[in-house]
């Protein structure tokens, strides 16, 4: 069985500045992986590189199929949903329009209404705000909307860039519960970038530690919690 996602010697540039210097890792189907690293290590850039949003070189394979040279919209159409840094909400559109757009690339339009209801089931707050302009939602509501929008694709791989950013601890716990449920129920693979390393390590099966554009440590989450370097830098004890 081939890996859900495989990156091989992935390099990325902004203009002339190289930010990733050969990132390699792989994720098993249906697994949750987390990408940890200091600010500026290249976590966001790695997610961008995986779905063709920056200039890259190297290999990216999704279920064995090479997606390295593909346009972002085609990668999305293969079932890769990305909740980007800054959420990427369509601020002038309503909550419900944002959700409809999340399912835009799906072949089956008839399932959309049902899936929107399913998202309202996960995030009842969004239902109350369904006709409201997304730009007027609170930060936390917008974060829920961004995740729900990504799930509307019924992705096989979900890329999440700091989903807990700016959220109250209770809400963070709720969102991580939902991620766990979605992963278990719908077999969605999740690649999570997260500042809250303790939470991420609890959720994830695998951990990749990124340092200035390179993966320096990779391993099972269970063993990482006991890794001294990880503990000191990211868990704070």
């Amino acid at each position, binding site marked *: 069985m081939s890996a859900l996602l495989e990156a091989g010697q992935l390099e990325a540039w902004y203009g002339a500045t190289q930010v990733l210097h050969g990132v390699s890792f792989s994720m098993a189907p249906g697994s949750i992986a987390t990408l940890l690293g200091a600010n500026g290590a290249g976590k966001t850039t790695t997610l961008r590189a995986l779905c063709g949003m920056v200039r890259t070189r190297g290999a990216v394979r999704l279920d064995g199929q090479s997606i390295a040279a593909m346009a*972002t919209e085609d990668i999305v159409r293969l079932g890769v949903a990305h909740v980007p840094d800054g959420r990427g909400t369509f601020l002038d559109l309503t909550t419900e329009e944002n959700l409809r757009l999340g399912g835009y690339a799906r072949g089956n339009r008839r399932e959309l209404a049902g899936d929107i209801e399913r998202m309202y089931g996960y995030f009842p707050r969004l239902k109350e705000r369904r006709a409201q302009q997304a730009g007027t939602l609170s930060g936390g509501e917008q974060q829920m909307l961004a995740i729900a929008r990504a799930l509307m*694709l019924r992705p096989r791989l979900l890329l999440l860039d700091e989903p807990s950013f700016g959220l109250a601890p209770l809400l963070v716990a709720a969102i991580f519960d939902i991620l766990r449920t979605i992963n278990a129920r719908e077999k969605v693979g999740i690649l999570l970038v997260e500042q809250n390393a303790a939470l991420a390590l609890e959720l994830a099966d695998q951990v990749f530690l990124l340092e200035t554009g390179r993966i320096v440590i990779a391993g099972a989450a269970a063993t990482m919690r006991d890794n001294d370097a990880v503990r000191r830098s990211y868990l704070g004890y």
Partner: protein
Amino acid sequence: MDAFIAQVLSGLVTGGIYASVALALVMIYQATHLVNFAQGELAMFCTYLAWTMLDAGFPYWAAFAATIALAFVCGVVIERVVIRPIGESSVLAVVVVFIGLLVIFNSLAGWIFTYTVKPFPSPFPAEPLFGNHYVSSHGIGAIGVTLVVLALLYAFFRFTSLGLAMRAAAQNPVSARLVGIRVGWTRALGWGLAAAVGSIAGMMVAPTVYLDPNMMAGILLYAFAAALVGGIDNPWGAVAGGFLVGVLENLLGAYVIGTELKLTVALVLIVGVLVIRPSGLFGRVTVKRV
């Protein structure tokens, strides 16, 4: 009083034309943040295509529909072939290309169809509707056509997924790609729609001003004023601005400054809006986060 009502009504008729062209400008502006100076010339050229078909004996509405379709294709092709390759380069390059397009369409029309002024038929009856003596049936018909076009565009953008995708792509192209929207194609589609709307405006104005290669020059200026007055990022504002500018132009021309200076109204409006309220009457004032 009678004369006043007549001026207002005929202002609404030309205002409808300005509204259509302004809407075409706004559609392209929203998708690309560029003002297409060649919009009017493209409309003029399409009106010549309609004229050619009518001359060849096509029934009016068949020629009308075929012209809209051709205009749409023309818009898409221009975006694909000319605009897209220069897309990310400087504003100056884009402006030069727009002016180039303007000149090309103008001289192409002059070369193929000559600069002699041609009459263009109206599909509406010659005798005034409902026995009114204020406005011709063509005037009423043109307003009707404008309103139908607006209603159709509204329904398209509001109720279809493609319309939603186009709005999304115009607002936030990066996020649009992340939900799988082919942003390049939605832009081309926007150009096609704008060209189609423009061609309708051309066919509606040609019976009144007669068809010649410079038919749209003044109209584009008024439409630009309308788009600015209404707010260049607001389709409804552009439409309202169109009607407003049409009426204002007529009233000022009749009672204040005389017809010779009418075109200055457009310029004064453009400069006035840019100085006093750049977002327009109905435009959103964007507050930039600092």
